[in-house]
């Protein structure tokens, strides 16, 4: 009862109230959505203790048991505790403990700028390579679907650069008028693909997603879907 029924009732209650609140401007319903988000943020901070604890446990046990690459676990833990201390105690913060945690000049901000930012940026930048290898592999005219994918991608790729007008100029210079005209149309075609079929596809996806979300949300609110609650017995 306390383990299963109550949670389902809570889900039902909170979900229903939030749906209904959308239509009630009067206090306290008007701001309920925001309040929920605030609540969630606060719960998430508490929950972090579980996550952070798990991180420490995993790496401590790796070091303790001397598993492969245990040396790097030391680095992880060091990074974690140094950053945590720098942030929680606001070490080197020009305004002391009152200042913003990310205030420039603090150890926290320095570590962020010189270590966190380049790592984050580079990891993100790896996409440039992966996008190239993925398109090399995926854009092959294997069948109708793949061919359409290929053509659409290729036209957009071409149209997003100044290349078409350069090529058109080349053809115009060589006296091949119709080719020049054709290449001059590439940017128009790009816009057309983005504005028309792309838009249509996006809309179908968006409407589908909306219905999927609605149905999923109802399954959760009504307690039909209760996987997330876990085991019945202890």
């Amino acid at each position, binding site marked *: 009862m306390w*383990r299963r029924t*109550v*949670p389902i009732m*809570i*889900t039902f209650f*909170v*979900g229903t109230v*939030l749906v209904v609140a959308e239509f009630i401007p009067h206090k306290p319903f008007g701001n309920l959505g925001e309040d929920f988000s*605030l*609540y969630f943020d*606060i*719960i998430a901070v508490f*929950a*972090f203790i579980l996550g*952070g*604890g798990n991180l420490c446990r995993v790496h401590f046990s790796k070091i303790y048991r001397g598993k492969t690459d245990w040396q*790097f676990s030391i680095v*992880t833990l*060091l*990074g*974690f*505790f140094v*950053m*945590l201390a720098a*942030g*929680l105690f606001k070490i080197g913060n020009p305004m002391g403990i009152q200042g913003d945690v*990310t205030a420039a000049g603090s150890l926290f901000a320095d570590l962020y700028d*010189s*270590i966190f930012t*380049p*790592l984050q*940026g*580079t*990891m993100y*930048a790896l*996409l440039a390579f992966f*996008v190239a290898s993925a398109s090399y592999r995926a854009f092959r005219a294997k069948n109708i679907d793949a061919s359409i994918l290929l*053509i*659409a*991608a*290729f036209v*957009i*790729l071409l149209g997003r650069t100044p290349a078409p007008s350069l090529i058109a100029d080349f053809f115009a210079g060589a006296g091949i008028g119709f080719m020049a005209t054709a290449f001059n*149309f590439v940017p*128009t075609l790009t816009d057309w693909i*983005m*504005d*028309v*079929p*792309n838009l*249509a596809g*996006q*809309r*179908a996806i*968006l*409407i589908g997603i*909306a219905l999927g*979300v609605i149905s999923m*949300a109802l399954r*959760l609110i009504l307690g039909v879907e209760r996987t997330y609650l876990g085991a019945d017995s202890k």
Partner: protein
Amino acid sequence: MDSNIVGVWIAAFLTLGIMSFLYKDNPWYKFSEAIFVGLSAGYWFASLFWQSLHAKFWTNWSPAVQSLFQGQFDYNLLYTGAGILGLMMLLRLVPPIGWISRWPLSVVVGGTAGLYLINYLVSNAIRQIGSTIQPAVTFPESIGWVQSGGVIIGNVLVFAVLLVSLGFILFGRSSTIDLPTPTKLFFFLIALVACGLGTFYSLSMPLNLTGLIIFMGVFCGLIYFFFSKEHTGFFGGAATVGTWFLMVTFGASFGYTVMSRMSLLIGRIDFLLVEWLKVVK
């Protein structure tokens, strides 16, 4: 100044460490990864602690409690609920009563379900349906040359797509429309003539068919997502056309994105060449 140079060198060291992963996994990458994981976890916790727990919870809740002792009720006292839910979450660390953590979880899931239901209904479903309702055909009074050229290309494309789709629905492998071939051919011919006339017409008079193709795309796309019916017959044909539209969407989005992915790397290369090595001004 000096600390700045040290910072740049550290950044360059880590940048190259991550990039080395492209060649293969190696200790340099492992080091960069390890420091990234640890540091960022610490970063997030510290930020959440100050920016959520302190700024949003403590600064609102503690004055409310104080004023309660002075006999006044403050709306912010409701934050107590959040604190209690957070503590309940932590009860997971006490196995015998760990199940209590399901309560805050139910609050989270219930709230998420409620909010998403409404937001997606309004922003994704209702609004997108509303903006799809537009004339399938319009007759713009005057349009510039390039634009009209675009429209003509568009129209020819529309007709081509229409014909191919029809052909697919009628003669495609998965087509199960039960009509004699001559009848099918007859329909197809009518469509062909209509499209030809349309093309001819759009050459002489501005005719904008973008609405039609958007309508078709949304309609067929929705049919593709239909679960209640097998994709056969007309339904199968329409669903296939729907997948084509999805493919165009994916291809276009992919193609559109390549550029920005490149620019991310430009940022890093810029850092290496300009800020670190200073070989480019």
